[in-house]
């Protein structure tokens, strides 16, 4: 295949990626957009086989593709919707790792004929790819709750990070000039360390923003690889992801009422929180499933506020059963969906759609907030931070400034919680101690099942 035809087909794949991102921006076209993106990737990957020069190692290449398919497809198909955000983080990490590995091989191949620009872009890819890889692994560990979800800050942390960054930059200059393998490995190690230190201080609720940022980083490494490998397609695809990822990161930060700067460096400037100070001592009102059923049965309007606890308990079907039962009793039911309820924006919409909850029952925050005043019962299922008034009245707390669902305006509040443990962001919720709050402890699904059977008996 001539270079011209190859480049032309590459351009076609690039156009498909643009259409994919465009499609993904609107609910009606989102699915088609994703399929167009997959088509673009398929075209690009098939075409490269016609363009290979050496035709060595074909068996290895196909074998590796098969291994990747055998891991990637089942992982993506079998993951429970609850754990989907972690998987996206992992996929982003392996993409960054792949870009870094490609760049390392490129670097070994550069030799004496390489231009300075090629060397610089290669080193850039190694650095940013490694940061994206290790950073994504940390976000995965945080989301999977294999490590603490709170910001990890140690004394002098910011100086360590600053020193690490300076070391990365210094060694980068050295690697560009010296063209040695050992300096490159040192650089890769320093970059991996930087990725870890960079993400550790980020609090749990802000992790999605960081994933989005690292996603944009990986895009840029792909663009840089495209320059070194002389591939227009990689430049287009990588730059598209880098640019749209940057905008998306900003949009996500805005949806959570955060500044990007505050997200990344907030933990260094915020005062340490007296987390759950003496909280456990105060009286709370807990009720039985029957109490909850009675409250719901005599309400005229009920707003359901789902959160991550609903996802963990896989209670989306049970909550729908309860809602259907209430509607059949003539009660008005709406779901109040916070933009970042769960672990990622849109997480709750995905889960509830899985349980066939009608789309028109799902209300976004701006629409549902003015209605809490006319709501008899707000039932909060496994959510905490997204209804925490601390976001409005406690300056300096990690979620301060995040818009919340104003369930406190409702006449009664029911919390379904596993325990008094604070939410993902690790902040005490004053609402739990409110006199109009009833707490129902236990696994969300088990509790809801009991509420449903109590409702049927009324």
């Amino acid at each position, binding site marked *: 295949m001539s270079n011209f035809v190859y480049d032309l087909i590459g351009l076609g794949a690039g156009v498909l990626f643009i259409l994919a991102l465009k499609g993904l921006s609107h609910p009606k076209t989102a699915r088609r957009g*994703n399929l167009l993106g997959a088509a673009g*990737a398929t075209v690009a990957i098939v075409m490269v086989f016609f363009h290979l020069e050496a035709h060595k190692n074909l068996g290895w290449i196909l074998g590796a593709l098969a291994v990747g398919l055998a*891991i990637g497809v089942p992982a993506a198909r079998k993951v429970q919707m609850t754990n989907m955000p972690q998987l996206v983080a992992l996929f982003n990490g392996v993409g960054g790792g792949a870009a870094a590995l*490609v760049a390392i*091989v490129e670097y070994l191949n550069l030799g004496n004929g390489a231009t300075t620009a090629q060397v610089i872009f290669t080193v850039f890819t190694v650095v940013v790819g490694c940061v994206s890889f290790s950073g994504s692994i940390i976000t995965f560990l945080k989301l999977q709750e294999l490590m603490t979800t709170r910001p990890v800050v140690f004394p002098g942390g910011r100086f360590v990070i600053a020193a690490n960054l300076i070391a990365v930059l210094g060694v980068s200059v050295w690697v560009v000039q010296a063209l040695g393998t050992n300096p490159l490995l040192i650089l890769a190690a320093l970059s991996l360390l930087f990725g870890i230190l960079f993400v550790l201080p980020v609090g749990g609720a802000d992790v999605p923003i960081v994933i989005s940022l690292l996603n944009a980083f990986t895009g840029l490494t792909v*663009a840089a690889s495209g320059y070194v490998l002389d591939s227009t397609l990689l*430049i287009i695809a990588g730059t598209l992801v880098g640019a749209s990822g940057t905008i998306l990161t900003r949009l996500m930060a805005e949806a959570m009422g955060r500044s990007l700067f505050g997200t990344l460096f907030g933990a260094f400037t915020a005062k340490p929180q007296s987390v759950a100070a003496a909280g456990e001592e105060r009286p709370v009102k807990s009720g039985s499933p029957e109490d909850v059923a009675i409250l719901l049965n005599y309400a005229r309007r009920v707003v359901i506020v789902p959160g991550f606890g609903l996802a963990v308990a896989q209670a989306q079907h049970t909550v729908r059963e309860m809602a259907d039962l209430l509607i059949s009793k003539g009660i008005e039911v709406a779901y109040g969906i916070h933009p970042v309820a769960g672990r990622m*924006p849109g997480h709750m919409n995905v889960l509830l759609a899985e349980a066939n909850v009608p*789309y028109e029952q799902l209300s976004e925050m701006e629409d549902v907030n003015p209605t809490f005043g006319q709501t008899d019962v707000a039932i909060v299922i496994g959510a905490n931070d997204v209804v925490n008034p601390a976001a409005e009245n406690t300056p300096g707390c990690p979620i301060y400034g995040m818009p919340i669902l104003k369930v406190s305006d409702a006449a009664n509040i029911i919390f379904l919680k596993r325990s008094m443990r604070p939410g993902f962001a690790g902040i005490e919720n004053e609402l739990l101690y409110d006199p109009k709050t009833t707490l129902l402890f236990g696994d969300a699904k088990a509790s809801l099942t009991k509420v449903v059977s109590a409702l049927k008996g009324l």
Partner: protein
Amino acid sequence: MTAIAVISIFVLAVFVGFEVVSKVSSTLHTPLMSGANAIHGVILVGAIIVADKAANNLELGLAIAAIILATINVVGGFVVTDRMLEMFKPKKGGEQK
């Protein structure tokens, strides 16, 4: 490729990237991120190119690892995005937003 051609492609792609996602509902943030994430998996193309040219076992090994990782990224990314978007399937009685 000349430097100016590369810079032109880069700058134009930046503007296209900004433009296509400038207005998007928060419901779609996660699928959009996941879709973009899958797109950067085309680094697989680069991984295949370097694997093809690999001069020794070290390079081949690194390139093979890159192919595996990139394949996971691109294939898994599109599949998981599709699963997230199942909620936008047209269904009876459900008004699409």
